[in-house]
């Protein structure tokens, strides 16, 4: 599962930074049928977490009400340089992870 992440490369100590993440995923609702009339099983990314310096700063629990290729935009306060660690998992148990570094001066 590919993801695009936008985190500023640098920031000043104490700044609030905007974090955006878009993950490639169909977010199957479970309400659709394939060409043979069989139901396509529900498969959505049900959890996305973001950690900074090992501490969880944001967590999203998603359902089928979130559009395909889920996009999230949220904020974090940074006191020192570090790495944002993103992690997500879908109903099929497929996991994805990504990191983004930030230099705080």
């Amino acid at each position, binding site marked *: 599962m590919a993801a695009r992440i936008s985190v500023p490369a640098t920031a000043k100590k104490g700044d609030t930074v905007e974090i955006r993440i878009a993950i490639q995923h169909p977010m199957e609702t479970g*309400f659709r*049928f394939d060409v043979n009339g069989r139901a396509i099983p529900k498969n959505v990314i049900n959890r996305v977490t973001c950690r900074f310096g090992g501490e969880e700063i944001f*967590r*999203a629990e998603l*359902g089928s*009400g979130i*559009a395909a290729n889920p996009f999230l935009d949220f*904020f974090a306060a940074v006191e020192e340089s570090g790495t944002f660690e993103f992690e997500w998992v879908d109903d099929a148990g497929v996991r994805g992870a990504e990191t983004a570094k930030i230099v705080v001066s």
Partner: protein
Amino acid sequence: MKRRGFLGIAGGAVALVLGRKAAAQVRIENGMESVVRDLTAGATVREGRVTLVVARLADNGYAVPLRVSVQSPMTQTERVKSITLLSPRNPRPLMATFHFGEDAPRAEVATRVRLNGTQRVMALAALSDGSFWSASAQVEVTESACLDAS
């Protein structure tokens, strides 16, 4: 009076009325009471503090951009713990829950949701003091999501 003009004035009047009873207990859409009760454990939900920004008209319900923010100092003692997005007309009303860490500077999040038809989308915020606040926004959806199974 032109229809557009009337709608503008009517909308303004509604906004005024809503603004005036800012701290009033919120009216919950039909069928949503049980969902909200599960989230709040029966606590009172008040209207205010939450801002829900979403287009009044969504041509396509498959991906409707939406931004929600909650007024809060976001300190250790007084902060927003989570925001839940609810849809009265989707087959699964619970769209998403966002949890904020203890150091989160702002209780604000944006995403894109699926909407199964015209409805009043609701955002419900849980604060660290145990109170619940909400905001709703009417969205007209021209082409609904979930066409296959509806």
